[in-house]
């Protein structure tokens, strides 16, 4: 009995070690190859915090990894603003106006995205409203401008692609539940291939105007393995105009 229990523990340890020691295939310049089609399999696009199910909304554990309670550490006035956003989400959610989703929201929309990787430049293209993130590597941020998708600059730390995102405007939300940020948003993302078909995504989110302290989100992204998979289109604006006719 005791031996069997030990065997089970060892087996678990071995699995964890295998996951940790996974080494991604390499690009021609020797970097971990993150290319392919990825998509989140969670409910963060509805709400990044833990949430109960509701009509049309599956319940979810959220993707906030720190603080441990899974809640965004809002300042009191920002918490009130989020409640107001939630009540008025049908009119106020920027995605209902077909705006660009911003970072990190693009990464957990229910649409696939593709990573296209070269030594100095990485494009991350989403199927949602043909949103693109241009990630220049080992380059300097620009300043004095704001963008819906921010200004992304990347570098490699071993197996991990680190992307620093500044110059965000205050017109995007984190999710459909009214969780929001200001133009002081600063996101540092970490992309690591931890298994052949898993890209582990972690991000630290700072916003001193809205938060009492930074918080972290984390989630696995899963690889699409369908034969001949490709991004199609979701031209939100065009469909919205048809709907208004």
């Amino acid at each position, binding site marked *: 009995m005791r031996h069997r229990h030990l065997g089970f523990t060892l087996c678990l340890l071995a699995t964890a070690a295998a996951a940790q020691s996974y080494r991604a295939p390499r690009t021609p310049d020797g970097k971990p190859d993150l290319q392919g089609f990825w998509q989140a399999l969670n409910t963060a696009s509805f709400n990044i915090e833990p949430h109960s199910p509701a009509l049309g909304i599956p319940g979810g554990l959220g993707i906030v990894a720190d603080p441990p309670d899974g809640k965004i550490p809002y300042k009191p006035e920002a918490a009130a603003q989020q409640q107001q956003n939630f009540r008025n989400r049908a009119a106020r959610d920027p995605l209902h106006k077909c*705006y*660009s989703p911003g970072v990190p929201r693009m990464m957990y929309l229910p649409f696939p995205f593709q990573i296209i990787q070269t030594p100095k430049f990485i*494009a991350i*293209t989403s199927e949602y409203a*043909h949103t693109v993130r241009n990630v220049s590597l080992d380059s300097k941020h620009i300043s004095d401008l704001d963008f819906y998708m921010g200004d992304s600059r990347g570098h490699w730390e071993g197996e991990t692609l680190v992307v620093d995102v500044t110059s965000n405007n205050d017109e995007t939300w984190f999710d459909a539940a009214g969780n929001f940020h200001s133009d002081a948003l600063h996101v540092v993302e970490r992309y690591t291939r931890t298994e052949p078909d898993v890209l582990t995504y972690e991000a630290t989110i700072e916003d001193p105007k809205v938060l009492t302290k930074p918080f972290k989100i984390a989630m696995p992204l899963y690889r699409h393995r369908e034969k001949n998979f490709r991004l199609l289109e979701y*031209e939100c*604006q*065009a469909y919205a105009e048809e709907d208004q006719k």
Partner: protein
Amino acid sequence: MRNSIQRGLLGSLPAVALAVAAFALLPSPGAGQAPQKKGGGEKGVGGAFGKFGPYHQPPYAKGAPVGRTPEGKPDMQGYWEARFNAAIFEVQDHAAKRGIAPGKGAIVDPPDGKIPYQPWAAEKAQDLFEHHIFLEPEAHCYMSGVPHQAYTQFGFQIVQTRGYFVMLWEFAHTYRIIPTDGRPHIPASIKLFMGDPVGHWEGDALVVDTTNENGRSWFDMAGNFTSDHIHVVERFTPVDSNNINFEATIEDPTMYTRPWKIAGNFGRNLEPNYEQMESACVEGNRDPERYVEEEGGKSKKAK
């Protein structure tokens, strides 16, 4: 000033009118020097609005021999701008008309430079231009479709990686991801603004076959529309490190009496440290509100 572009410049009639005025006054930089004689910028719309304007065409600069990617294919990566005469206004050879600068288009076949329309389609294009210019797709921030996307404003970036040839435009952040792995097209029932591109290499030329377009894009700002039966075969042929020749054959038996062909070329953007900025078109678009009723819009005509 070109950063945080928040409007569909092309679709804005005031902007177009201004461009026509600018076109009349400005010389065409680089005229006559393009590597491909026909349909390729010999009478380009030049510097309207200056270096960062929507109708800028790059001066010709001879390049070095074409490099190779790690996969051994011609390396066309970097930032490019289009030279397609005045096709950005109208793809056919055309005289000046409301909002349209006069000039050559990009049609190299038939030799008269005109789209070989069936009569009904010619009538419809005329009607769209005269009475429904409100429907011009770029005014609504729609992606421009194929082959129109090749000669849209502000230039684009080419990124090549194993199995893909990727084009990223600044205007409205449109992208095209062209697989080169020999895969088949998607089912014909799927219709998309940018269609389904499938590429292959013929020597140093990238040949791209595009089907599955939704028939909602135009070739220009002059009402030259498409149907969802359009089939386009493009050839991207690198000339040297600074120049790419482009041609596209367009077929649609429901609209034309015969296939026809456009040609133009792309010049490398040689500005050091150039990067594309965000062009948030949908987010700031006020163009549709400007169209008056006689243009198919909803605004009352200013008295």
